[in-house]
């Protein structure tokens, strides 16, 4: 009798995982909730966009400010993000927890597969679930197109890619939670404590600087921000991919029964250290691509070229509270761009406490931005690039570059449209379609079960 089996093909185990996905209820519940959630976000976004577009139809300067990416796509994906954050963990957890609860895992780990094969097949099912969950979102984009709306392909693809990476990370965290705990309910609590904990971190960091701010920078929510600005940040992409693979590797270590605890801990420590090193290395990759058609996240090319040639470290000291909206504006329009354009930039947020509309009482320095370059300093209160860049050039002893176009001139895309008719699709037809698919996937099995009793 043969004593060693050749490794099995991945196709059967992949089919089994897809069947598990279809026969369980978590995917269908997600779809049933996602459809009205995305629909509501989309209909509201179109209504607000129409409001903003009305005056812009007659004033071209206003029209230039209207971007469907910011006005329609990002808000619509907000509903999608909410559902993925709160409901997607259940789909991923079920793929492991049900196998542990039913005893199937004891059989599965004896099959001629590597552990990584099982985890890969289960993760492929998670990706399939995410692709199915795109149906409401894609139908929203189709509706927008039918209403005459515009979407830029590169911006849209970048944002969708960011959401895919986010969902993969959530799925991997959920896998690990399911392998670490005995029951699906405990795993869900663990996974949601990470996802919802990110919201708490973000909220806590709003009004505090220092460590809270640093921790909030790596919260799951903050990872989506560059994509929502039309930026493809290579360090963020690499970091998310490494973290996802790391969580999956940890899940593969904790999944099989019968492995000594000390061995699991040693393996986990190696994975955590390896992932931390790789993420640190990935963080050194400074490439951030501005995929917006008008390069609205970047300085003009001539400025970027000149800034890239400034060799010294630029120190920017900002005397504002972290919750001050001027700091947010400064960061997006100047500081983040400087960090991408210059080789060495350090930003310090120096002010503590809250700020009123005109700064905090009794602190005359509040609101100041101090630029230090090559041993020389200059102070301004302006948060605009038009004022800050000339100061920097003066400190560096270089002349301002000749004005150049900021990129392709975007005409703006005002659109007065009414998407309320789409409610029938998002609140009625689409959920009914999902119910029908759910019935086809699992109800016939329930009938067979009832008959056998």
């Amino acid at each position, binding site marked *: *009798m043969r004593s060693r089996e050749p490794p099995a093909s991945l196709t*059967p185990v992949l089919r089994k995982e897809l069947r598990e996905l279809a026969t369980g209820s978590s995917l269908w519940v997600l779809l049933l909730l996602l459809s009205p959630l995305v629909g509501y976000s989309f209909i509201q976004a179109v209504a607000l966009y129409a409001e903003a577009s009305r005056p812009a139809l007659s004033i071209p300067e206003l029209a230039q400010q209207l971007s469907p990416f910011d006005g329609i796509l990002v808000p619509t994906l907000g509903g999608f993000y909410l559902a993925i954050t709160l409901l997607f963990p259940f789909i991923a957890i079920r793929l492991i927890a049900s196998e542990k609860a039913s005893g199937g895992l*004891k059989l599965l780990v*004896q099959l001629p597969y590597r552990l990584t094969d099982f985890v890969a097949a289960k993760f492929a099912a998670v990706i399939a679930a995410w692709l199915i969950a795109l149906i409401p979102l894609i139908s929203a984009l189709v509706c927008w197109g039918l209403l005459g709306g515009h979407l830029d392909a590169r911006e849209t693809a970048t944002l969708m890619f960011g959401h895919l990476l986010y969902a993969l990370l959530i799925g991997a965290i959920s896998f690990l939670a399911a392998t670490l705990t005995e029951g699906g309910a405990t795993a869900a609590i663990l996974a949601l404590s990470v996802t919802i904990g990110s919201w708490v971190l973000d909220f806590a960091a709003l009004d505090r600087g220092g460590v809270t701010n640093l921790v909030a920078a790596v919260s799951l929510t903050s990872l989506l921000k560059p994509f929502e600005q039309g930026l493809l940040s290579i360090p963020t992409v690499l970091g998310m991919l490494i973290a996802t693979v790391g969580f999956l590797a940890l899940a593969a270590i904790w999944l099989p029964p019968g*492995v000594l605890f000390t061995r699991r801990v040693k393996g986990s420590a190696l994975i955590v250290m390896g992932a931390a090193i790789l993420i640190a290395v990935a963080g050194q990759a400074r490439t951030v691509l501005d995929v917006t058609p008008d390069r609205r996240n970047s300085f003009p090319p001539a400025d970027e070229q000149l800034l890239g040639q400034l060799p010294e470290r630029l120190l920017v000291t900002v005397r504002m509270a972290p919750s001050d909206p001027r700091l947010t504006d400064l960061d997006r329009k100047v500081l983040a761009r400087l960090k991408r354009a210059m080789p060495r930039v350090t930003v310090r947020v120096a002010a503590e406490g809250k700020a009123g509309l005109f700064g905090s009482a009794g602190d005359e320095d509040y609101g100041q931005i101090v630029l230090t370059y090559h041993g020389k300093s200059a102070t301004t209160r302006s948060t605009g690039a038009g004022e800050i860049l000339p100061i920097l050039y003066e400190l560096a002893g270089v002349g301002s570059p000749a004005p150049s176009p900021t990129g392709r001139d975007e005409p703006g895309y005002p659109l007065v449209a009414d998407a309320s008719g789409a409610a029938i699709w998002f609140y009625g037809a689409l959920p009914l379609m999902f119910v029908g698919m759910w019935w086809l996937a699992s109800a016939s099995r329930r009938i067979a079960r009832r008959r056998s009793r």
Partner: protein
Amino acid sequence: MTVADFSSTVDALVAVHRICKAFGDQQVLTDVSFEVASGEVLGLIGPNGAGKTTLLECIAGLLSADTGEVRWRGSLLPPARRREQLFYVPEAIAPYPDQRTAEVLTFFRQAHRQPPSRLEYLVNALGLEPARAKPVAALSKGYRRRFLLALGLLAPRPLLLMDEPFDGFDLRQTREVMNLLREEAADGRTLVLSIHQLGDAQRICDRLVLLSGGIVRGVGTLAQLTAAARLPMCSDLEEVFLALA
């Protein structure tokens, strides 16, 4: 108490050596040792709580033993490599409850790269045909047991460990399954069966390991165990077990 051990007479395919396992303060297995010969049907018998399932899971590598080892043809077989040689069929599990029986059987057949004819043979031999279209969760206890046996027999491994393989069967069904297992053993497959029904164990097993309180009380054929217990040769396994345990 006398421990009857006739292991040294066996040309061992697999040797279980001094396995100990405790859950917290509770010692479940203490220095469990025995050997199994190729093509043999070995019965692991003992009352509920004797440690049979824990022992099988330790041998299968699904539970880490505190001490002890398993040797395959004399060579150490570490837990991570046990699935190369053996397959363990647990008791009372319902894997993939929402999937149809036929789908799960086909998955296991394909995973083990077995021909469809092998699955057809097992489905017929175990009388699983009426259950094929049903979800696993809908199977009765008897059909679920047959289904699990089929999953185990699909694995082309030299050694099968089965936990309570006759549980849920009536007398006729038990005999049918015993015949099937006997055929497998005749084809060279080695079986270790955990059985709490002593009558079933006496009928099918070549040799027996008597386990009580996590300690091996005797290993050997019924005749050898009867002699060790100093009982008349016409004694049945129940009397022998009570005498040795």
